[in-house]
């Protein structure tokens, strides 16, 4: 699926601010399941944007604006092509998780981290999913546990603890991702937090056809390491496997490693923040079929 994405962050300050320095993590990754065709960042006021790849493999765009300004607008435009993902294996024995080399390789995704510190309530919820006896079954038991929670905005903020999410049985995608990651780690299943975009049906108009632009939000989901197979991506918020409509930006231990925007500025703190994501499906044949067609012509 070929998708156009326009991610806009707009700060309106109460009074002019200056010397702002920022980091943006909004660029779709290129990996076996998706391919970045085009990416461009524009800032207003204008600035020189430089990029690097961070420890976690995410592209980071950094820029600073020294001159006083009332509004800062950052627009990241991307075109990305996503492909289907393979199905998970049907069965993997639990003892495969105890393999020393496997554990050592995934240590960073097995331990608590800043937003994934859990207590007894998350611990016991996770253990209740462990009866399944097979890695794949346990993975889906946790997934369905979290997927059963109510999506509710306004209740939570980035700093909310996973135990509170578990007891409220409600939250937003970040909360569900953090909770699922915590439960997996409790069970010794390496799990990481994924930040990205999800192309969905427009709630208001139902639009999903080609070339219709859809307003969405940034999204978060989870990847778990399946021994001997690889990373399996699951979206507990939508109770589904991650597929062609999901666009990955980056992966890390939790939100802090992939937070879309970090910045400081000098001036009064008061500001309004508006974040919008517009996505559009482009009319092209799937990459696989196109390549096959090209090959048959040769």
């Amino acid at each position, binding site marked *: 699926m070929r998708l156009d994405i326009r991610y806009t962050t707009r700060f309106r300050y109460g009074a002019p601010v200056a010397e702002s*320095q920022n980091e943006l993590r909004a660029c779709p990754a290129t990996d076996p399941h998706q391919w970045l065709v085009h990416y461009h960042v524009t800032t207003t006021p204008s600035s020189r944007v430089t990029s690097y790849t*961070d420890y976690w493999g995410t592209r980071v765009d950094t820029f600073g604006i*020294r001159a006083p300004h009332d509004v800062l607008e950052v627009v990241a435009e991307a075109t990305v092509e996503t492909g289907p993902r393979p199905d998970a294996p049907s069965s993997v024995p639990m003892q495969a998780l105890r393999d020393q080399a496997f554990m*050592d390789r995934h240590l960073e995704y097995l331990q608590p981290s800043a937003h994934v510190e859990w207590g007894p309530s998350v611990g016991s919820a996770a253990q209740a999913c462990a009866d399944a006896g097979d890695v794949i079954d346990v993975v889906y038991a946790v997934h369905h546990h979290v997927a059963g929670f109510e999506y509710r905005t306004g209740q939570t903020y980035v700093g909310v603890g996973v135990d509170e999410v578990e007891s409220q049985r409600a939250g937003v995608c970040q909360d569900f991702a953090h909770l699922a990651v915590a439960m997996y780690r409790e069970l010794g299943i390496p799990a990481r937090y994924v930040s990205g975009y999800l192309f969905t049906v427009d709630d208001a108009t139902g639009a999903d056809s080609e070339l219709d632009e859809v307003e969405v939000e940034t999204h978060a989901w989870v990847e778990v390491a399946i021994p001997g197979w690889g990373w399996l991506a699951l979206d507990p918020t939508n109770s589904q496997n991650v597929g062609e409509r999901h666009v990955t930006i980056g992966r890390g231990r939790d939100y802090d*490693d992939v937070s879309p925007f970090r910045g400081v500025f000098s001036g009064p703190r008061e500001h309004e923040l508006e974040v919008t994501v517009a996505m559009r499906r482009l009319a092209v044949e799937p990459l696989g079929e196109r390549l096959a067609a090209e090959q048959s012509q040769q």
Partner: protein
Amino acid sequence: MGDLFDDYDREGFFDEVFADPGVRTHYQGVVERLRRLSPTDLERRERIRDGIFRSAGITFTVYGEDAGIERTFPMDLLPRIIPAQEWEVVERGVAQRVTALNRFLEDLYVGEQAAIHDGVVPRWLIHTAEGFRREAFGIPVPHGARCLVSGVDLVRDHEGTYRVLEDNLRNPSGISYVLENRAAMTRVLPVAFAEQHVQPVDHYGPMLLRALREVAPPAAGEHPVAVVLTPGVYNSAYFEHAFLARQMGVELVEGRDLVVDEHVVHMRTTRGLQRVDVIYRRIDDDFLDPVVFRPDSTLGVPGLLSAARAGNVTIVNAVGNGVADDKAVYAFVPDLIRFYLGEEPILPNVDTYLLWEDEQREHVLDRLDELVVKPVAESGGYGMLIGPAASGEEIEVFRDRVRADPRGYIAQEVVALSRHPTLIDGRVEGRHIDLRPFAIAGESVEVLPGGLTRVALRRGSLVVNSSQGGGSKDTWVLEDDADGTGGR
């Protein structure tokens, strides 16, 4: 007539000055001089010393004592003397260690992590080190001089063997005392000093500045601009920051004096902005850049890491060095020396026990009253247990701490640190000492002759850290042709 050293008792320790038939050769000249001083003469010289330090304004705040108390860091009148051939070994050993640690850090942050892949250091140990800064990944440092300034703490054991106690690779302090002690000593004991042909230390400022310029980014051109970045006057080592800036003839700045524009660092001056190429920062990683680290830090420079990553400024010491002076990683340094340099370590470690393996941990917990236990990420002697000097209650506290966080602590055999005669209330008594030589790495590694000898002033104490209320001695490394007797 009795003299200063008549009642001196070595009490079975390795003594720097006295050996079995008497005074060690390299101390004979100085001991002779001191023997000839009357008590009043000694007192007078102590007063001169106090005056020098007071007027220089040298203070060192001790954390954990009453806030705001500033006290001088007392220099003992009796210098520590190291003969040339003994120093030569220390110098080579420290340079070897710093070279290997720089290779290791370079490999971790911009290399292939060969030491991990080849199993020299466990991956999990690195990934759980507090000082491992993923944010520093990929930031280049010219010549790989990540530890540009290192302070490697050495002790001598009961046989007089120099051993490495810990590496200080983040912001080692104390060099200002080395230079001030020397300046004071040449005035307090001018004749004794002049007789001894002591290797100079007063070129430290130029030596540091040269290395800072050597690591400037290529874009800096012929005349790179270096600054010293301090957290400000309330920092316990502010005196040293100001001192170093003065020694090098460069600006002393705080975070708010610097600004990043288009990924280039500038200093605000009365004539506008001036480009800065190298920052000798004495601010901890956590506070260095609020965009990347603690967002509430007002001490740092927003955008600094981005500028460093773009190759427009070099941060000294490099960000993330704490992973290599983690005290559990310390235990692997001899292996890192073999791995990166293909050499045997010249200076051995102190015997160290890692506590995450059940058997070793239980063995250590049975012997807590005989061992030293240290938290892995602290420096300055904070939060440690000295078993033989601890109460039963303190030992139980550490037993719980170690059980709760085995990765967070190491245990070491107690080293019977060498002692040195020290003036205590007009008498000479033996006190335990250590040595912190300072190594500077630019294009190559150079070690300043001597370093800071720290003295545990409390009788019997093994804790020499200045932050724990220790004292210091001027440290004389003799020239090749000098034997210490004062003649040639």
